[in-house]
């Protein structure tokens, strides 16, 4: 019951979705439509589970005084504040338990939930990922060495694309006559992207696609069961 029924569920819904693709009429079409509705709702609960799990993990880290445990208090406080702001006064288009928070909107310009999102979260998120600009430059300097034919190809393609996909490329080779238009850096970068890059990416896409099809079949047929966990 703990393992066999879930395997049967996965088999049944997997086959149903595939059959509905070929016979989109009743009952298969409507059954799949209902299933898609259910999926969205369960996915919503899965997101809630994710947040609950995050808090549980952080509480345990604080409880057992793991390294840097003090910082996890900040996580829980900021999570709680965001959730309470959302539940009390709602989001931009939604009211909360205490209504729409008109007086708050008047004094701070937006609802507290949106205020935190716009003035704190957006900046944190953008800064966090923009840090990679520095590290990718550092990685390029240390690791982008042309040692072999393969690494030289990698290097040349990267440099041509980096030049060709900026205004600098247009500036550097803009003077070339039309007969030599192919060597104009933006054209060269476009050629690389359109042909050799697409060829490589398409090979990856076809092979990864075959891999996903194989994995899907293994799941539907119950050969792959790791998603059920232990016991």
């Amino acid at each position, binding site marked *: 019951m703990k393992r066999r029924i*879930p395997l049967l569920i996965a*088999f049944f819904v997997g086959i149903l*979705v595939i059959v509905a693709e070929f016979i989109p009429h009743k009952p298969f079409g409507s059954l799949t439509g209902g*299933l898609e*509705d*259910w999926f969205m*709702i*369960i*996915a*919503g*609960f*899965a*997101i*809630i589970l*994710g*947040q*609950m799990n995050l*808090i549980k993990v952080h509480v345990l880290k604080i409880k057992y005084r793991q390294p840097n445990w003090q*910082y*996890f208090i*900040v*996580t829980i406080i900021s*999570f709680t*504040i*965001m*959730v309470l702001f*959302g539940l009390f006064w709602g989001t931009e288009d939604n009211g909360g338990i205490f209504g729409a928070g008109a007086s708050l909107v008047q*004094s*701070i310009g937006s609802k507290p*939930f949106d205020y935190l*999102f*716009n*003035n*704190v979260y957006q*900046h*944190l998120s*953008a800064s966090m*990922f923009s840090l990679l*600009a520095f590290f*990718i430059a550092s990685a390029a300097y240390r690791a982008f060495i042309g040692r072999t034919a*393969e690494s030289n190809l*990698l290097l040349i393609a990267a440099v041509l694309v*980096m030049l060709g*996909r900026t205004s600098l490329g247009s500036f550097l080779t803009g003077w070339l006559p039309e007969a030599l238009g*192919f060597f104009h850096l933006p054209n060269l970068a476009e050629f*690389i*992207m359109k042909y*050799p890059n*697409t*060829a*490589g*990416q*398409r*090979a990856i896409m076809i*092979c990864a*696609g075959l891999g996903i099809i194989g994995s*899907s079949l293994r799941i*539907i047929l119950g050969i792959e069961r790791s*998603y059920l966990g232990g*016991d």
Partner: protein
Amino acid sequence: MNWLGLWLGALMTFGIYSFLYKDNPFYKVAEQIFVGLSAGYWFVYTIYFILIPNLFNKIGSDFGAHWLLIIPGILGIMMLTQIVPKLAWLSRYPIALMIGTTAGISFMRYMKSDVISQMTATMINPFSGSATEIVGQILLVAGTISGVMYFFFSKKHEGAFGVGAKIGIYFLMVSFGAAFGYTAMARISLLIGRLQFILFEWAPNILP
């Protein structure tokens, strides 16, 4: 209150950027605020924009038409039992439903879009168009076939097959190089966004 928002934004940005010098408490606090606010945002949005309109409101407004939605509601609650080790096995039912549906849909969609359509897109007449297009199309066909050969590991890469696989590696290297160029471009764009905020939104408000 606009000044407070600008200062908060700048403070968070500098907090994150302080990591460039070395790891420090200022960065760690900013990092954890990021995690907490992100999780809180997802939580609130899931309740307001998925569970309320698509589950509770539908059942509440017209139970007769939507009574079947009780099933995903129960399955959703079963999903939450994952948090309690003794009851965690109950979450296998909704997980199986999600995994089975995703597997079925992925099977069909990847077969059509990533395998059949890509193979069709490669079966072109490479000898049509301008000289540049002909060279490009030959590269496209040869590169795709040799790239696929490289990923075929059931046969040893030797002889003629090995040559094909080797050519495949060259095409993959060009792809990875181009991808690196694009990645560098993306990261620099994000830095531009940050500096546009610091230089043109925050700085004018602190300078006399």
